[in-house]
């Protein structure tokens, strides 16, 4: 279910993105638009992560945030996590995707902290329901 008309600033930007089980993926830090020859704009993808957020905040802090985001990537030319808009199944108080979290690239900061810090502490594997 998607609101009509869909307002990018109101319905999309800065909302929480969750996977199909409701697990947090990230925020809609920016979006990717496709503009047709006749001028109609379509949202093609949600951009998630520090690089996208940093570029949007801009200023000294934004630039720093984006550069930290880039530094954490192992790719030569890092880009923000791109979630194609056709995966979106619901736009409500959160943006729900129809796919599993595991299908998306793992955020580099999460992976680094897990491998180097958290997973090394005893008991890191148990969920306490």
């Amino acid at each position, binding site marked *: 279910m998607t609101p009509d008309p869909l307002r990018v600033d109101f319905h999309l930007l800065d909302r929480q993105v969750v996977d199909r089980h409701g697990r947090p993926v990230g925020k809609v830090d920016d979006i990717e638009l496709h503009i047709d020859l006749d001028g109609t704009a379509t949202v093609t993808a949600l951009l998630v992560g520090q690089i996208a957020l940093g570029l949007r*905040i801009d200023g000294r802090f934004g630039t720093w945030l984006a550069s930290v985001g880039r530094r954490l990537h192992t790719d030569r030319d890092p880009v923000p996590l791109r979630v194609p808009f056709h995966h979106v199944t619901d736009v409500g108080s959160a943006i729900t995707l129809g796919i599993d979290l595991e299908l998306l690239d793992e955020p580099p900061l*999460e992976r680094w902290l897990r491998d180097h810090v*958290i997973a090394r502490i005893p008991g890191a594997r148990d969920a306490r329901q």
Partner: protein
Amino acid sequence: MKRALAVTLGILTAIGGFVDIGDLVANSETGARFGMRLAWVVVVGVIGICVYAEMSGRVAAVSGRPVFDLVRERLGPKVALANLAGSYLVTLLTLAAEIGGVALAIELATSVHYLLWVPIAAFVIWVVLWRMRFETMERVFGLAGLALVVFVVALIALDPPWRELGSQALGQASASGEGWASYGFFAVSLFAAAMTPYEVFFFSSGGVEEEWTRKDLITERTNVFIGFPLGGILSLAIMACAATVFAPLGVQVDSIGQTTLPVALALGKLGLAVVILGVFAATFGAALETGLSAGYTIAQYFGWRWGKSVAPRSAARFHTVVLVSLLLGVALLLTTVDPVTVTEVSLVFSAVALPLTYLPILVVANDRDYLGDQVNGRLANIFGVGYLAVILLAAVAAIPLMVITGMGTS
């Protein structure tokens, strides 16, 4: 029984706002200096936090979105970042103070200097945050914090001049001999402590951790309307004990040992043992509340996975923030700074954090996309807007009053 235990989230949240280490001393200090002349601020604070905690809990139950999600979504990344900075600093400074508070409570029992207990206290707090189930945590520390009810018992045993205290509370008694600036400073501090932003972060995130849904709205409201008034009553009892014991002698209160003294006078050794247990549980509970809130705010701003119901390795960024915050708190305490002063300084950052936290809650609580038929009624909106004005006033007044009075010392 299950129903009775369902209100422990509200109680634990209220402990952080009304009887954490800063407030334990501040309530007592206020009672000693002003009698019950500032009791009305506690009442105003209880109503204010009830109004906004209820809204934030309702949004969390119906839409599953905790407070900092709303802040980011309604204020945009830049203004939300200003709030994040302010809120995180308030939370971090309070966390540091609470670790110190736990250590001070153990010092009261053992006479071993509190700084030696700081690393041990911090480690035990971390183990609880790392290993204990959210519900167990909230029940153990919410209920143990109720040991502070001993202040109510002590007050009755002291048999204070009720008529005198009552007329002070109603503003009919003669002036306290303190300047208006000090009076204003203590009024603003008490109000800001009652409305401190980590309460709504913790309460709404706790609701999400407990997987509240629309069906749990009654539980949510019971938590709010039992938990916070209970916190307020404890706060008033501490103030009244100090007003009875210290005010007539003109004694200044500035340490936790003095806060507990009226209980020892009234109830003897047993009372003292109970009050030390209460102080320990309340500061420990407040440390858990602020430690988790530090993680909640940052994780929710960036959209990370968070919470105690997922395995730590699946929420590595969240658990790293909690761990680093605890270490920063310990580092701050080991500079030998006074934990009580730390909570007073955190007031400066509340000035930024308070309006920018409560405005988005009020806006979203009126949004049918989030709440459907559960949006604010007229009464909630009247109170909500009124309190927003009071919060702004307090935020603007806080810093000049702090400077004029040298944080209440003159």
